[in-house]
């Protein structure tokens, strides 16, 4: 198999597969959560409250809580990391071109210079988290190999993307690795703690309502 067929595989069927597993997996998770909760988590529905649901999510989706106040550095790095992590691949010009080529759809994109900085920020924040895991005893003790592995899975698309953009090393190989790692990340999300990108909202809502029914804020 040469690089061209590999490229076409990653650009075609495997990309479909990755998106399929990612979206399908997450939809399935929500369905399974809903079904089990209907049977075993009566407390959610008995004390359901839109007010506490939104308040709880809002207070944490923007850093308006005690934890953010007490941990300003982790909060700052965490927010910058997540914003760049999500925005960079979606608004990257090169990705936009691919969408346009395939579907003739396009949307606003970042300038290449800004996207380049944002990529470096993601990698830098990721390294910060890795070092934090190694240095702080109370973080090290809960850290498992999976935590490092998932951090690596999250960072590799950005590292290879950066290398590809600057055409360091062999461009074709780096590009293929970039596509592979990007698809790998999408695939593992539904099955690992990375699913928190969606389950965060469920958990926050539930705890917000649980505290809220006693008129206590959970932030």
């Amino acid at each position: 198999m040469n690089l061209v067929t590999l490229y076409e595989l990653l650009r075609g069927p495997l990309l479909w597969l990755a998106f399929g597993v990612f979206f399908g997996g997450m939809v399935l998770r929500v369905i399974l959560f809903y079904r089990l909760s209907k049977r075993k988590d009566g407390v959610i529905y008995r004390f359901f409250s839109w007010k506490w649901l939104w308040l709880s999510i809002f207070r944490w989706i923007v850093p308006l809580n005690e934890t953010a106040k007490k941990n300003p550095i982790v909060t700052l790095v965490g927010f910058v990391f997540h914003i760049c992590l999500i925005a960079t691949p979606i608004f990257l010009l090169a990705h936009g071109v691919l969408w346009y080529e395939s579907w003739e759809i396009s949307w606003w994109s970042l300038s290449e210079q800004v996207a380049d900085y944002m990529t470096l920020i993601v990698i830098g924040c990721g390294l910060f988290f890795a070092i934090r895991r190694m240095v702080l005893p109370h973080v090290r003790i809960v850290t498992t190999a999976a935590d490092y592995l998932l951090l690596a899975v999250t960072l590799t698309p950005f590292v290879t993307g950066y290398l590809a953009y600057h055409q360091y090393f062999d461009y074709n190989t780096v590009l293929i690795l970039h596509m592979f790692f990007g698809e790998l990340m999408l695939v593992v999300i539904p099955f690992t703690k990375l699913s928190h990108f969606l389950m965060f909202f469920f958990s926050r809502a539930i705890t917000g309502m649980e505290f809220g029914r006693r008129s206590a804020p959970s932030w």
Partner: protein
Amino acid sequence: MAEKVAVDPQAFKKAVDDRTNARLKMWLEICAHCGLCADTCHFYLSNDRDPKLIPAIKGKKVLEAFKKKDKIDEAFLEELYWTVYGDCTMCRRCTMFCPFGIDIATITSTGRGLCVSQGKVPENLVKTIESYYEYGNQMEVSEEDWIDTLQWMEEELQEELPGATIPIDKKGANLLYTVNAREPKFYPMDISQAAMVFYLAGEDWTMSSKGWDDTNLAMFAGDLKAAGYVSQLVRDAAEELEVKRVAITE
């Protein structure tokens, strides 16, 4: 001290299956191991920041139990027991400060519930739960003693406030006043003082001959069956007396 009981893997597996719910599964899966819960835990802070005492570790121990199911042994049960009883008071402070809102207190309570399936419950808590079943209150106060205490307190009350009463089983009252069983047992004056407030406030209130203990220590054992039974006693009393509200002691 806990009673020494051999491990019953099948009962443990059944407890795990019974207690598995959507919230717990989600929480045990999404914990990012960020360690931000550490500074919120009084066990961690008061033990020279011993990393073994951060809330996430306790959640992990219960997660292990959920994974082991019927493959548990005595050594693991012992570890689980000391984690859920020795290292956590279920105060929910970490729940409040967790970015994901992971409810470690509920997870600990579930861990205690798993221990119940093995008869692994602190001795005093076992006695207390037995007392609820036998006497309907945590202090082994018989109905006779209870009524006697209330009448005695009414006499004391009337010496100070002639005309004031402690109504018992008054149907259709506005308020059913419930107490901690420690009050009739050790501090009966608390009851007459509450009665004094009700009398001066002109409240239409009553006490009940049954279902008057508003404590629920079975809850602390994560023993949902017993905890449900104890709550039901007060509810039954309120329904039988057709009161509008139940007030609990301070």
